[in-house]
C-alpha cells in the first residue's frame, strides 16, 4: 500500500489501539524546557512515577533566559526559580540538560537539529507549539501541553488521533528578496489560521526541494500558525547532508544505513492525500503582517484591507485588528514607522538568517529612535556568527548583539516592547500583547526585511533597499 511519510512514521510508532479508539503512540524524542515542565514533574511525583526513558529525553533552557546578563542567580527571581527547578528535575531523572555553560544551549527547536538529535522518521514531542519545526527533517513532530509532558515522561507515549494529510506543492523559483518566511506567511494567508486544524501539512514541490534545511525549518515552524499541529518535508539528500557529522547523528557505517532508511520514509509517489494545494512561489513578494494573527498579512507593496472587502464573517476580525494596531483601512504597509527591530526566534534565528540580515545592514546604521537587537537561536549559532564577524557587522550598525534564547518573541525575559511600540520582528506571532506590552504591536516579516526596516526606521521593500557604499 502506498503511504505518506506521516502514515509510515505513525504506524512504526503505534504501540496499540486504546479502548477509546485512539492510538497509543511511542515518542522517539522528548525535548523539554523550563516553562512547561515543572508542573509535569510535580504531577509525576504526586503519582509516585518516574521518568521512564531518560535516554530519549533532552532538556535546555530558552524561554526565560536573560540575553544580556546571564550570571546566576538571575536578577529575575521567578526566572531563577524556573531554571533551578529544571536543573533539579533533570538531575534527579538523569536527563541531559544543555545549560548556559554547555555551549550547546539555545532555543529548543534550534538546538535539536543542530545537535543531530532531530532525525527523520522519529516522533518528536515538546511542550511548545513550534515543535513542528523538526518536521523539516521528515519527523512527525508536534507541540503538547503539560499534562501530556507528564504522560511522555511517565510512559514515553501519548494517546493521539492521527491527522489527515494535506500536501502543499510549492513550485517555481522565489524571486530575489523573497524568503522561506514569505512562503509560509503566504500559505497561512491563503489557507487561514485555522485551515490546518486536523491536518498534517506536507510541504513539497520543486521550490521546497531546492530549500536548505534552515529554510525548511522556517516553513515547518509556522505550521501551527496555520492551525496544523504537524508540518513536514520528505527527507532527501539535503537532509542527509545536513545530518552528517552532527554530534548525536549516527556515525560511520551506521550513518549510511541510517541515510538509506531515512530516504525510504519519503511519501510514496502514489500516496493518497486528503487534500492537495498548489502554491506558485514565483509570484510571492515580501510579506508583512499588519494585524493580530499571522494570517493577516499583505505583500509589502500592497495596502491594508478594509472590512468591507471581505466576507461578512471576517469583517469583525479585520475591524478589531485595525483598531488594535491603530492602522487605517487601505493604508500602504510601506512607510509604517517602527520603534523596535527584532531578529530572533525559533522561526528565524539560525546562522543563515543572521547572514541575510547582516547583508542588508552592512555599511548602514540603525535609524535614530529605533532599538534593534539580534538574538541568535543558540550558543552555537552565536559562536559561528562571531567566527564570520557578523557580530561586528551588527554592532557597528547599531544593533545589540545578545545571548541565545527566545527573548522578544514572547518576552518572558527582560526583552519587551513598551507601551504602543511597533516592532518589526522575524518571529512567528503578532498576537495582542505577544511581545511583552499588552498594547505593543508586532509586524512579522523575514529577517532581511527586519534589517531593512531597522535601518530605514520604517517598513521598506527589501528589494528596493539600496546598499550605500557598494
Amino acid at each position, binding site marked *: 500500500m502506498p503511504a505518506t511519510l506521516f502514515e509510515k512514521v505513525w504506524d*512504526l510508532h*503505534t*504501540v*496499540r489501539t*486504546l479502548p*477509546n*479508539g485512539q492510538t*497509543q503512540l*511511542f515518542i*522517539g524524542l522528548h525535548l523539554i524546557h523550563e*516553562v*512547561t515542565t*515543572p*508542573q509535569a514533574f510535580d504531577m509525576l511525583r504526586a503519582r509516585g512515577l518516574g521518568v521512564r*526513558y531518560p535516554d530519549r529525553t533532552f532538556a535546555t533552557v530558552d524561554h*526565560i533566559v536573560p540575553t544580556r546578563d546571564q550570571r546566576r542567580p538571575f536578577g*529575575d527571581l521567578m*526566572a531563577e*526559580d*524556573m531554571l533551578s527547578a529544571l536543573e533539579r528535575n533533570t538531575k534527579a531523572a538523569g536527563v541531559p540538560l544543555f545549560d548556559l555553560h554547555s555551549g550547546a544551549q539555545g532555543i529548543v527547536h534550534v538546538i535539536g537539529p543542530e545537535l543531530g538529535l532531530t*532525525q527523520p522518521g522519529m516522533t518528536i514531542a515538546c*511542550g511548545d*507549539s513550534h*515543535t513542528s519545526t523538526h518536521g523539516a527533517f521528515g519527523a512527525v513532530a508536534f*507541540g*503538547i*501541553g*503539560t*499534562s*501530556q509532558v507528564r*504522560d511522555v515522561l*511517565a*510512559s514515553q507515549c501519548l*494517546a493521539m*488521533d492521527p491527522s489527515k494529510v494535506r500536501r502543499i506543492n510549492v513550485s517555481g523559483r522565489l524571486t530575489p528578496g523573497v524568503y522561506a518566511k514569505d512562503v509560509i506567511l503566504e500559505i497561512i494567508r491563503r489557507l487561514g*489560521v*485555522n485551515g490546518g*486544524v*486536523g491536518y498534517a501539512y506536507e510541504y513539497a514541490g520543486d521550490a521546497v526541494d531546492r530549500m536548505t534545511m534552515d529554510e525548511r525549518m522556517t516553513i515547518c515552524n509556522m505550521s*501551527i*500558525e496555520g*492551525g496544523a*499541529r504537524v508540518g513536514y518535508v520528505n527527507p532527501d539528500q539535503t537532509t542527509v547532508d545536513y545530518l552528517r557529522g552532527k554530534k548525536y547523528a*549516527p556515525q560511520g557505517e*551506521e550513518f549510511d544505513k*541510517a541515510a538509506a*532508511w531515512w530516504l525510504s520514509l519519503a511519501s510514496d509517489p502514489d500516496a493518497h492525500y486528503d487534500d492537495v494545494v498548489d502554491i506558485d512561489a514565483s509570484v510571492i513578494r515580501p510579506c508583512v503582517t499588519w494585524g493580530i*494573527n499571522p494570517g493577516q498579512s499583505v505583500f509589502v507593496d500592497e495596502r491594508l484591507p478594509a472590512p468591507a472587502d471581505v466576507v461578512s464573517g471576517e469583517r*469583525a*476580525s479585520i475591524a478589531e485588528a485595525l483598531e488594535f494596531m491603530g492602522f487605517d483601512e487601505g493604508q500602504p504597509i510601506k512607510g509604517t514607522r517602527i520603534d523596535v527591530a527584532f531578529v530572533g526566534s525559533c522561526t528565524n534565528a539560525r546562522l543563515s538568517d543572521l547572514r541575510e540580515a547582516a547583508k542588508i545592514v552592512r555599511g548602514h546604521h540603525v535609524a535614530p529612535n529605533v532599538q534593534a537587537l539580534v538574538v541568535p537561536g543558540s550558543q552555537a549559532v552565536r559562536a559561528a556568527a562571531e567566527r564570520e564577524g557578523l557580530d561586528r557587522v551588527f554592532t557597528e550598525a547599531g544593533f545589540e548583539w545578545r545571548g541565545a534564547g527566545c527573548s522578544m518573541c*514572547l*518576552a*518572558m525575559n527582560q526583552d519587551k516592547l513598551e507601551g504602543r511600540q511597533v516592532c518589526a520582528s522575524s518571529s512567528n*506571532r503578532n*498576537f*495582542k*500583547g505577544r511581545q*511583552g506590552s*499588552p*498594547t505593543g504591536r508586532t509586524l512579522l516579516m523575514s529577517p532581511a526585511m527586519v534589517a531593512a526596516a531597522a535601518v530605514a526606521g520604517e517598513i521598506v521593500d527589501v528589494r528596493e533597499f539600496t546598499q550605500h557604499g557598494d
Partner: protein
Amino acid sequence: MAIERITRITGRGLPLRGNDIDTDRIIPARFLKSISFEGLETHLFEDDIAQAREQKAGHPLVEPAYERATILVVNRNFGCGSSREHAPQAIRRRGVRAVVGESFSEIFFGNSVALGMPCVTGAAADVARLQSTIEQAPDVEITIDLEAGQLQCGPSTGSGPSRAQSRDGDWRMAITLPAAARESFLDGSWDATGLLLDRFEEVEATKQRLPYVTGWR
C-alpha cells in the same frame, strides 16, 4: 487517580465572542513565569479586560451576571497559538467545566481533555444563538449531554428580572465531540497516564523495533 466519568454538565453560560482568540490573550506569557499552575485564574484574559475597561466597555469575564457561570461559549478557532496548558488551566480554575464553540485549536482541545474539561462544537448559528440567549438571560440553565450529543438551553433558573428578558425559551442544539474524546469522558479515561502505563511490555517492544534505537541493524 480515581476515575471520574463525565457525561452531563449543567450550569450557567459565559458568552465570549470573537474568532481566533489565542492562548496569549487567554493567559499572557508573563504569568507563565511560575513553577505551579496555582492562582492562574486571577490573570485570565487580564490584558483584554484592562483594555476593555480603558475603552469603558465591559468584558464578560468580569461581568457580575456571569460570575457563577461554568460553561464558556466561544466562536471559531478558540485557543489557537501557543501550546501552554496554562490557558485551559486558568479557565478550568475559574470554575469553567466545559467549553462550547464553533471550533477549537487542536492543542488547546487536547490539553482540555487532559483536564477533564470537554470542548464541544456546534453549528455557528447555534453557538451565536446560545451566546445571545445567555446575554439576554444570564441565569438560563444549560445542560451539555455528552452521551446524547445535545445541549439543552433553558429554562432560566432565576426568578429575577432576567427571566422575563429571556425572549428565547427552551431549545436544543446538536453538539459534537470527536469519538475518542467523547469515549474517554464517558468511561473516565481522559486522564491517560494510567492507560499508557498499563501494558508497558508493548511499549518496550515498540521501542526495540525502531531503527534509530537499535542502530539500524
